[in-house]
């Protein structure tokens, strides 16, 4: 689904990532770790065509990311649900409208029952009419997850989704991601929360990728 081959990325001040080779197989669950500033967000941006590799090749659903036209990028993003590190919403529209935004922009009608069920599932049923600026960090992260899955995407990428959550809320979000993976979704979570990774490994077979020395390596089982 997502394939990295000898990928390098350079913002202009030297290569941040080099020689990245990785294949996200359907139904897999990956964690991506590494110190702050290592390039986790950059890696994810390469995976949803926000950035194009400066070396090597990223293949998204069988197509070279570099050859994607602007509309192709839009179509690709409909198949990849992303929970961004800084969850951005349309602040003037209520939560429910924000969650269904991916459907709105591609002209699909929303199903009210599905939406209600989804909001219940992420624990935001009572906040459907709230405006995003009034939400707490954890509520925003869960709203972002709901928005990421509403299109029933094949892949879900989450960038430090528990970054500003307490442990209980982190566990809850992890549970949601694990459930999605059990439903067959391919999941990649960037985090530097080792406890979260241990907790996940007790529930499923997750692989851990670590960014070190500009390379993305498969970490051992010694976590």
């Amino acid at each position: 689904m997502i394939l990295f081959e000898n990928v390098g990325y350079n913002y202009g001040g030297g290569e941040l990532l080099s020689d990245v080779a990785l294949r996200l197989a359907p139904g897999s669950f990956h964690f991506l770790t590494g110190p702050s500033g290592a390039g986790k967000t950059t890696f994810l941006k390469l995976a949803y065509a926000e950035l194009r590799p400066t070396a090597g090749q990223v293949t998204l659903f069988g197509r070279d990311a570099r050859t994607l036209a602007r509309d192709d990028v839009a179509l690709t993003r409909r198949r990849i649900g992303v929970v961004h590190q800084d969850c951005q919403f349309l602040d003037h529209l209520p939560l429910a409208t924000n969650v269904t935004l991916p459907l709105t922009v591609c002209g699909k009608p929303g199903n009210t029952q599905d939406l209600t069920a989804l909001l219940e599932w992420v624990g935001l049923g009572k906040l459907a009419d709230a405006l995003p600026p009034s939400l707490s960090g954890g509520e925003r992260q869960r709203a972002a997850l709901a928005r990421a899955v509403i299109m029933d995407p094949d892949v879900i990428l989450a960038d430090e989704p528990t970054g500003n959550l307490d442990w209980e809320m982190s566990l809850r979000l992890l549970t949601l991601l694990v459930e999605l993976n059990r439903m067959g979704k391919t999941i990649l979570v960037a985090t530097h929360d080792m406890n979260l990774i241990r907790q996940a490994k007790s529930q499923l077979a997750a692989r851990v990728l670590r960014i070190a020395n500009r390379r993305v390596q498969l970490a051992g089982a010694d976590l």
Partner: protein
Amino acid sequence: MKNSFTALLGADRQADRVVPPSGFTAQLTLFTAGAMAFLAVFALALSLAAGRLADRWASALAGTATIRISAPPEQMDTQVAIVLSLLSTTPGIASARAMDAAEQRALLEPWFGPDLPVDALPLPRLIEITEANPGYDGTGLRQRLAAEAPGAVLDDHTRWRRPMAHAAERLRLLGLLSLLLIAGATGAMITLAANSALAANLSVIRVLRLVGAKDSYIVRAFVRRFTLRALTGASAGTVFAMIGVALLPRADEAGAFLTGLGFQGAGWLLPLLLPPLAAVVAFAATRFAAFRTLKGLT
């Protein structure tokens, strides 16, 4: 582009909602579109009135100068013959014709009544000249007449209108040029307003792109707004200006140019084209601005 224009006027309110409403820019756009339409109506009225004036004066020019010959009765026919042969060799004269007694009587009748004994009076004979294009040299013709037929006087009473007709023609061009400038200024103004709206909503545009919106969807949200604003503003401006023109005082038919400023008959339909024209200009300008902004984002 045609398709997106019709889609725009259709049901696509959804796209409109995703961009937050912007009170101040909206008011400014409405106001400017209205003011521009107001000016455009007057420029249009000016062009049309100048055009009518130019046509009227040009047609009055087409022809009529007269040569009046006063001579003792026994010399009259000779002089007429001399003048006619002189005219036939003068460049710039299409035709010349001596009026007969019946025509002269018809001309004088309104002043002196039907019983005027034209034959008994020592009336001058009239020769009607139809001018060619380009016309004849008036001074030269006068000199030749003075030399060969001292009793003949050239009366080219319509010649003074020639520069006036030129001026009216020029005025019509200026009016049309003003219309073009107004359209251009409207486009420039809407581009500026759209750019500022796009810049103010960059974060909205980013979110939309991230959740998979195509450029055309985002562009539509902005284009729809600015097109509708321009249409509304220009409609108001046009209506006010048309009322203003309709209320201009009328003078008599021979009235001066100022009172002829206005629309006649089907001409009243022309200013109604201005609001849709403003909408098309806004549509194109916003679309251009939006696509250019989007190109800089992923």
